[in-house]
């Protein structure tokens, strides 16, 4: 998928100026969050299960190689085939080769962020294979040619009216005014798609190492159909999705739906263990599991960022985030948005490309409070900030030599100016004498600017003064008042 994270500021401006997007965000964020709160408030064991979920993920990540090997063994034992992909291109090639090998003409897909991440739809279409998204929201954005706006609600930003127009333009349908009519129309088309599909592709919410079972969580039944009607099922998973055993799965299922939509359990949880057996009537004849790295081992190797791999993609941190609630999903410029997107995107696409993202936070900490697996997101945003600043530090060769050439791009002049200002600030604050002198300068400057009329709007900090006045420095600082009081 194309990365546009470097255009974050520009996209934020556009999102904030778009009343439809702001309206959608204003209702969706609080609605999801209220549902989450209600679900956990009537679930006293929720907090302990969140601790347990965190611990299971942490333990699994600490021995990820062994857990993945166990998973691969189990999948093969039940008749599935396992494929390892180190990056997006390899994953695309594996899936396209498989599809071509089966002679597939039409693929049905259920919503999967991982396949968005690797740009699978474009690759399949490029190989002449018709590819149809079967989750309603994902189908809508596929028609619109857009990326998901939200981890669990990809078409959250689209109004009903926009979908009406989209269906007229892309499907030639008549003017359908109600949600029910639109859903029925999509359902009709998608049912036909399922019937004629040769291949079903899904993501994976959890992959159980013990049994080789993959769990797919959804509300529309489209993943169930994608994995049972076509002759072949390919599941694509990020390598962090492995969990040790079925009892772990029960922990995560209890906290995932509650955190995502406020449901006790999502409408469908499909647990798939290999292809159809001899005595079974349903299910595909072949099952393939593609296990994807694509930058995850970089996160795994970094003790400051590793815990981001605990993420179960519930979207709760997006829903509560006041930045996401205004910036929206597309501003982040890649697949994952919100606080978790701001943390992991730089590690996936390169820090220089996504250098604005970790700074797009007031560090309010609301995301950490809602994360079902207790990822300390503000702390990791800080860690990414330090890495980005170190990348641009000429004195910090050791750090930058470890990076790919794309990441070691020279610092832009604004970053150099900021570094200089920070050095000046630190030197001032490191000496009480210089600090007092700076205070006196501030006094003089404020008097100078005041005499020129208007409220004090000093240059250099226009980002502040475009919205807010700067307070006048006090005529006597606290320390001066303290000194005269002591006398």
């Amino acid at each position, binding site marked *: 998928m194309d990365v546009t994270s470097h255009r974050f500021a520009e996209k934020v401006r556009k999102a*904030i100026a778009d009343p439809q997007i702001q309206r959608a965000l204003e209702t969706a964020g609080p609605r999801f969050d209220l549902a989450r709160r209600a679900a956990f408030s009537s679930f006293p064991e929720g907090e302990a299960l969140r601790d347990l979920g965190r611990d299971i993920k942490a333990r699994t990540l600490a021995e990820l190689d062994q857990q993945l090997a166990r998973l691969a063994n189990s999948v093969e034992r039940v008749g599935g085939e396992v494929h390892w992909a180190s990056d997006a291109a390899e994953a695309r090639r594996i899936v396209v080769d498989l599809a071509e090998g089966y002679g597939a003409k039409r693929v049905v897909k259920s919503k999967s962020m991982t396949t968005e991440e690797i740009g699978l739809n474009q690759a399949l279409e490029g190989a002449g294979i018709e590819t149809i998204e079967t989750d309603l929201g994902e189908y809508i954005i596929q028609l619109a040619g857009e990326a998901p706006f939200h981890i669990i609600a990809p078409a959250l930003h689209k109004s009903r009216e926009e979908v009406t127009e989209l269906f007229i333009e892309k499907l030639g349908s008549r003017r359908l005014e109600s949600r029910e009519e639109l859903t029925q129309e999509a359902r009709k088309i998608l049912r036909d798609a399922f019937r004629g599909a040769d291949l079903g592709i899904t993501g994976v919410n959890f992959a159980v190492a013990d049994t080789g079972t993959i769990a797919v969580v959804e509300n529309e039944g489209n993943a169930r159909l994608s994995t049972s009607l076509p002759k072949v099922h390919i599941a694509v998973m990020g390598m962090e999705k492995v969990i040790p055993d079925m009892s772990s799965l029960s922990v995560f299922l209890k906290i995932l739906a509650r955190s995502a939509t406020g449901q006790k359990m999502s409408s469908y949880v499909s647990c798939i263990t290999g292809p159809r057996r001899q005595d079974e009537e349903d299910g595909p004849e072949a099952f393939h599991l593609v296990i994807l790295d694509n930058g995850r081992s970089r996160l795994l190797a970094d003790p400051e960022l590793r815990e981001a791999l605990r993420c179960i993609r519930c979207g709760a941190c997006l829903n509560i985030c006041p930045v996401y609630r205004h910036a929206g999903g597309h501003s982040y410029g890649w697949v994952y948005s919100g606080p978790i997107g701001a943390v992991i995107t730089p590690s996936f696409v390169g820090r220089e490309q996504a250098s604005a993202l970790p*700074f797009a936070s*007031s560090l309010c900490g609301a995301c950490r409070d809602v994360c079902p697996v207790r990822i300390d997101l503000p702390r990791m945003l*800080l860690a990414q900030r330090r890495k980005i600043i170190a990348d641009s530090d000429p004195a910090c060769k050791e750090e930058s030599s470890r990076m790919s050439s794309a990441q070691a791009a020279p610092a832009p002049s604004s970053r150099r100016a900021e*570094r200089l200002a920070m050095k000046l600030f630190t030197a001032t604050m490191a000496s*009480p004498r210089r*600090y007092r002198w700076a205070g006196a300068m501030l006094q003089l400057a404020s008097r100078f600017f005041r005499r020129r009329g208007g409220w004090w709007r000093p240059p250099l900090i226009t980002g*502040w003064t475009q*919205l807010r006045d700067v307070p006048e420095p006090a005529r006597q600082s606290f320390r001066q*008042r303290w000194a005269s009081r002591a006398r």
Partner: protein
Amino acid sequence: MKTALFVTCLVDQLFPQVGEATVRLLERCGRQVEFPEAQTCCGQPASNMGYGDEARRLGRRMIEIFEPFDEVVTPSGSCASMVRVQLPELFEHDAEWRPRAQRLASKTLELTELLGQEGFEPGAVRFEARVTYHPSCHLLRELGGGGSPEALLAQVPGIELVELPDAEVCCGFGGAFSAKMPELSGAMLDAKLKAVEATGASVLTATDCGCLMHLGGAINRRQGVAINRRQSPLKVLHIAEILAHDGNLNEA
């Protein structure tokens, strides 16, 4: 018990009346307050902007300056959380400074935490105003909420405390974030001020001068009133100013 006031650079230079109010409150809690004059900034701006070395340099100063004291009190949840949470993390891999940072962390308190702990009761002077309280994020989430600031406010005679809708949503300050990403910060600010207006309060209060400078600066811009002059219909006051109120607020 040796108690030090960590006044914060913002209060020192821009809002000294908040520092004075804090001293009055500490004295009413029986503290003999000392003010170590070498103090400047805790280093949070550097830390939050990703400048770890600079933050550690200022952090080491903080640790040294406050080492002789038994207790350090500050009228800011954000600066307190810098000392309590971020400093020990910044020195995580430093065998010499980590324990010293942890010692400082363990004796540093945000003002309302100390007031709550001491069972502080506001004086008899009435404060006749409709007041709404914005809980600053770092006190709320990094430090676990402080010493019930709202309960402290509710005890002030004459006060009419009104609940702020969506109080726990960030105001959009975030230090350098407010100047680096003015569109996002401004959108969050608008939402917060709309909520404040809906309360019909004449006073907006919080535990942090950073948030208040951001909110107050925007109120002034919109109303054309100077931040320090307190002529606008909506005043912005630090919680210490209300709790230590002795009838002379307007001459602050």
